[in-house]
């Protein structure tokens, strides 16, 4: 039957379209069930953590496409998240003429997608400099773009400026967040395991030979940035409609770093690694709640330690189900 593995990863012959649709429907049903179960039986505090994990997963997966797969170091992910959050929240909260529509689930969904598209557009703008810059320089420029986006929102009074934007309809929940997380995973996984995805990976491996083998390097760098920014924007939209309130400071540099840590801990280029990294990074502060003041110290210390002791992250570039990652654990990082 339509087991989830072949649904997303495909087997030798592939699943026929009707089965894919059926599998997807089944998954939605499953999620609805889980959603009902969690909403009725789990205390709100834990629920909140679970949903935040889901948002983290979308962020981690999307950043992984640029940082882990395309090998471009972006430090401005919070900026894309901010664009998605503000655009979608603006649609559902401020834009009155369509008020009724944007209060519905469908409306919020549309707003979230619109936020994603706006973020994708900003990803295009940020992706352009990546054509000329690499490494540290690119990191700094993306950091700069992220901060500039934040400063721009700080100065737009229509969305509250520094006071923030309150009263956003609380429309996103476990179901929507995890549906998007699964969609994000499936899309990025399938992209990476396609011809275009191999082109993106080849850029990470060696840009010069990549272009010499006919890959339009500039094009695929921008593609990676746009897709990555789109999902970051979606995560932002979901976040806004879960919190009910956003302000520019929510999307500061620390948020970008948090997402980078997710990807780094999980292993750059490993999708399942990014998922686990996202869960760890979201849970850790909660687990360290009793040492609240040590939290950020432990966090940043952890980042340094991971880099020193296990520079390729937990899973390296492999997925959990790829047996070789286990052997990889024992392999010393090559100088």
């Amino acid at each position, binding site marked *: 039957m339509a087991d989830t593995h072949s649904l997303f990863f*495909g087997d030798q*012959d*592939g*699943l026929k*379209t009707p089965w*894919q649709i059926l599998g997807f429907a089944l998954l939605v049903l499953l999620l609805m069930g889980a959603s009902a179960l969690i909403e009725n039986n789990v205390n709100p505090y834990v629920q909140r953590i679970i949903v935040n994990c889901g948002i983290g997963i979308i962020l981690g997966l999307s950043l992984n496409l640029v940082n882990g797969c395309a090998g471009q170091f972006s430090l401005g992910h919070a900026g894309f998240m901010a664009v998605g959050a503000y655009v979608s929240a603006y649609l559902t909260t401020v834009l009155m003429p369509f008020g009724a529509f944007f209060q519905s689930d469908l409306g919020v969904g549309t707003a979230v997608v619109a936020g994603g598209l706006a973020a994708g557009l900003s990803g295009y703008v940020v992706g352009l400099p990546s054509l000329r810059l690499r490494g540290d320089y690119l990191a700094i420029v993306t950091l700069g773009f992220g901060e500039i986006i934040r400063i721009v929102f700080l100065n737009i009074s229509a969305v509250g400026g520094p006071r923030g934007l309150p009263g956003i309809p609380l429309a996103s929940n476990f179901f929507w967040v995890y549906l998007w997380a699964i969609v994000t995973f499936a*899309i990025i996984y*399938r*992209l990476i*395991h*396609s*011809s*275009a*995805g*191999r*082109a993106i*990976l*080849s850029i990470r*491996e*060696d840009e*010069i*030979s*990549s*272009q*010499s*083998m*006919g*890959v*339009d*390097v500039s094009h695929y760098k921008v593609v990676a940035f746009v897709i990555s920014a789109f999902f970051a924007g979606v995560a932002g939209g979901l976040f806004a409609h879960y919190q009910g309130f956003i302000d520019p400071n929510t999307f500061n540099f620390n948020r970008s770093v948090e997402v980078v840590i997710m990807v780094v801990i999980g292993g750059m*280029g490993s999708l399942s690694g990014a998922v686990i990294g996202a869960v760890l990074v979201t849970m850790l502060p909660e687990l360290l709640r009793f040492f609240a003041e040590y939290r950020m110290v432990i966090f940043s210390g952890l980042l340094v330690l991971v880099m020193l002791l296990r520079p390729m992250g937990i899973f390296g*570039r492999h997925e959990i189900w790829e047996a070789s990652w286990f052997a990889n654990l024992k392999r010393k990082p090559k100088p």
Partner: protein
Amino acid sequence: MSASSAKEVLKLNDVSVSFGGLKAVSQFGISLHESELCGLIGPNGAGKTTVFNLITGVYLPDSGTMDLDGQNLCGLPPHEITKAGIARTFQNIRLYKELTVLENVLVSYHMRKPYGYVDALLRTRQYYAKEHELKEHALRLLSVVGLKNNPDDFAGSLSYGDQRRLEIARALATSPKVLLLDEPGAGLNSGEKVELMKVVSKIRDQFKVTILVIEHDMKFVMGICERILVLDHGELIAEGTPKQIQSNPKVIEAYLGVADA
């Protein structure tokens, strides 16, 4: 040689480039014919790799013309030149080390856009059919260069000689009209070199591709090339059959220096 009767494929005219006042290549001109196997030799620093970098668009020539089957190549970005039909290998191996051997070859098919994003995301029949077809084709190429045994190993884990072969397979996968090999024999032992000579000749015969090869090993060049070009200080100083080159005084001078210098 019947070279003159065959169709002209790649033609360079008066190509020059200089870096910071230093003329790296000056007024270089060649014309390669269909399925010709041609060698490019010269002392270290003669500008051989620079010629490759000019042809493949890594460097832009200061002057001169380059065309492939009548299509102008000057000013095209490297990936467009590859699409036009020129592929290369690198002197300092540049594989995608953390991709598998098979994936290294598969990347080269991408420029022909085997299927679109929708096929990839929905995993349509087209996706599976094309992926299957590409893999088959890649495996065939791998077996031509003698690498069919472990397509799923990481490229970085291959032995040096195998890495050089994989570079050739990867370049071939772009279906080039002209294949540029930059010191394919460097670092190989004599046994491996003999193997490589066979592979290179076989590729030329089987794919009817024009090959221009840079190589220091004279046995290699003299053994398989029909025609040899000699470059020194960025200038073409001799051109001819292996026999003619061997007895050309200018070539001997370039390599050994003038007798009383």
